[in-house]
């Protein structure tokens, strides 16, 4: 009997909730544009997710949340960087909250899940937040998924050539995390470096490794002229600390998430070896560009007293770049999302925008950004270590400017396929 009572209660509850949602107003002609935000406010990337919403909120406030005579309603959702959670949230945004456009998600596996989901939709658009897996747009792209930010492989553009030609180093040791994002970054580095004639020795470590001493001992003894480090978060900190403690003195080259304020603001011996470290990525703390200086100024004015960073994070900038893409296209079509968003999606595909970093952005035929990548060096400035851009590779596309068929033939990046193919001679 107890079962029956509770089932009735559950059904009553359902009816109650259903009644509550009925009260939502009917959609009028010039109703607000509903923009759904999806980022991670829980889990390992929570600080990046918070910064993403800071930047989006700041840019929406700047235009008074109005475009083409229509108000923009921003509906925020949060996942925990897991693909199935991101998918459940995206479904809620589209089907329950009835949003027109989703801005998000933040991490790689989420991006691929949402790309697949977007393929099942008509008249809805998903614009990437900060996820950087190459395959999201490179293989099996979806017509409803757009990405105005660059991917993990693109972020390494120019680094391999710089190490081989400018630094004159003929052999490197790569220490990298054993998962998708480092694979993509190592791939991007190797493509250039090996083609130029460099030799690479790989050392992989699973995500969450705390003891790198055996690896570092091997690296220090090897003939490598430099160390390329592509670890994330606490793994990176552990590697750098142990490298400094072991007296490592080879020049350091790093992936995009290593040269980051979260690493630089942590105390410890790693700071000594990190000054002078070279890295590649879509942003830096200091970029000699008026657009960037103005953006950083605005960010600090708005957020420095409300928990913001000294300088906007990589996730904040990626979300902003993608938001710029959406706003540009909405302006082009005068806020008209009719006809299954056909005109809007055409405007998105044709958009030419300027990212907060001052980089020009346009999309390729897979709706993936072609944009500028910065070469950065860590320097002591104003009494603290900062990431300073010293060179800029313009118009880097997803295949690092190799012909697409040739690039695709190399296969997807993995531990067994790190992209090290010498130039055909």
């Amino acid at each position, binding site marked *: *009997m*107890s*079962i*029956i*009572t*509770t*089932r009735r*209660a*559950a*059904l009553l*509850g359902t*009816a109650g*909730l*259903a*009644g509550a*949602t*009925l009260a*939502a107003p009917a959609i009028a002609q010039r109703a607000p544009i509903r923009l759904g935000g999806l980022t991670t*406010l*829980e889990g390992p990337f929570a600080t990046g997710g*918070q910064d993403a919403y800071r930047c989006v909120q700041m840019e929406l406030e700047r235009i008074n949340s109005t475009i083409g005579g229509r108000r923009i309603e921003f509906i*925020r*959702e*949060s996942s*925990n*960087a*897991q*693909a*199935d*959670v991101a*998918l*459940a949230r995206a*479904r*809620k945004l589209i*089907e*329950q*909250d*009835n949003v027109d456009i989703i801005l998000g998600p933040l991490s*790689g*596996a989420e991006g*691929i*899940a949402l790309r*697949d*989901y977007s393929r*099942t939709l008509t008249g809805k658009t998903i614009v990437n937040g900060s996820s950087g*897996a190459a*395959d999201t747009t490179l*293989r*099996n792209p979806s017509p409803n998924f757009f990405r105005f930010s660059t991917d993990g492989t693109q972020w390494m553009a120019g680094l391999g050539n710089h190490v081989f030609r400018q630094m004159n180093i003929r052999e490197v040791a790569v220490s990298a995390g*054993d*998962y*998708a994002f480092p694979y993509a970054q190592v791939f991007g580095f190797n493509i250039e470096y090996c083609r130029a004639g460099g030799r690479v020795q790989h050392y992989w470590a*699973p*995500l969450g490794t705390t003891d790198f001493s055996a690896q570092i001992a091997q690296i220090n003894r090897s003939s490598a002229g430099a160390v390329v480090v592509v670890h994330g978060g606490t793994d990176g900190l552990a590697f750098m600390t142990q490298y400094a403690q072991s007296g490592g003195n080879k020049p350091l080259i790093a992936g995009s998430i290593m040269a980051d304020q979260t690493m630089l603001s942590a105390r410890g011996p790693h700071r000594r070896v990190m000054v002078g470290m070279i890295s590649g990525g879509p942003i830096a703390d200091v970029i000699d560009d008026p657009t960037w200086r103005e953006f950083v100024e605005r960010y600090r004015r708005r957020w420095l007293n409300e928990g913001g960073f000294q300088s906007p994070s990589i996730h904040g900038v990626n979300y902003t770049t993608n938001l710029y893409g959406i706003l540009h296209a909405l302006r082009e079509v005068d806020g008209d999302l009719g006809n299954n968003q056909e005109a809007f999606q055409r405007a998105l595909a044709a958009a030419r925008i300027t990212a907060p970093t001052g980089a020009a952005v346009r999309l390729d035929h897979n709706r993936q950004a072609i944009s500028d990548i910065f070469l950065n060096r860590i320097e002591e400035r104003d009494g603290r270590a900062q990431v300073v851009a010293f060179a800029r590779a313009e118009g880097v596309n997803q295949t690092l400017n190799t012909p697409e068929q040739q690039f695709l033939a190399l296969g*997807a990046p*993995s*531990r*067994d396929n790190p992209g090290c193919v010498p130039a055909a001679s």
Partner: protein
Amino acid sequence: MRRGIAIAAALLLLALPWLLHAVLPANQAGFWTGNILGRALVFGIIAMSLTFLATYGGFVSLAQMMIAGVAGYTLAIFVEGAVPRIVGGAGYALAIPLGVLAATLMGLLVGAIAVRTRDIYLLMITLSLSMGVFRFVETNITWFNGYEGIRNVVGPSLWGLDFRNPWVFYHVTLGTAVLLFAGVMYLVRSPFGLVLQGIRDNPRRVAALGYNVALHRIAAFGVAGFIAGCGGVLATIYNIGISPGTIGLGATVNVLIMAVIGGLGHPVGAFLGSFIFTVFDTFAATVYDRDRFNTLIGIVFLVIVLASPDGVLGVGTRLRRLLGRRAADK
């Protein structure tokens, strides 16, 4: 009378999408059908595999989500059209039974490994098994495509009805859930089920009567593996693929939470629990601060377990006892 009510409830569940359609706008009715009720049923099936073991065998296993994941991964590895293609070539008609079979075997294996443990030790060994599988699929690229998992498992078309349609998905899931539920109710009244309950109450006495306790335990884990496998296949199709996050620590604990808040006294508790969980998981961020909605979810679950240690199921019993006492006083 009991059977009559059960049939009425099943009919009501069957008609629910149309009732929802009558009271909600079209897209929201679809959302409730597919993503609240459908998702609740899918996870209810996985939670029921735990409830079955806990209620009738006294084994609380934390491996059930991992076992469901084994079915999901097997399906994704063999089915044609999945990205990336690992083996491929099989249709859904072959890949789905393969998935359920793999989960059943994994259930038997977990049961065999954990056969000598009880209580907290059983909990620990099943948890470590599921974390081991989780770490393995997260780092293995060749078979499981590592961190990104295997995508694009869109589900079959049934007689021209697309699985991605929420109504089709809901009814297939409902049918599966009802069949499995009826199967569990039948099984626990069979000699096997009675022996299982005997093991729960006093394994030594059951052994003295001449039954092979270990074999019965392993078989019970096999049955639970079959149930979890059915849920895993549906969850994979629902999520259009599978990635390690689906079987991670969070997901494992969520299944336990569903079973506990629903109540471990009866298999139906699993479905009540997963329904409550799904509703709060989906809407907590709407009704409460977006940065801290997990607090609300936690408080609600705490209140349920505090007010009624045997879950939502216990609330009904308690109420009835209260009303009964009042009637007796008069």
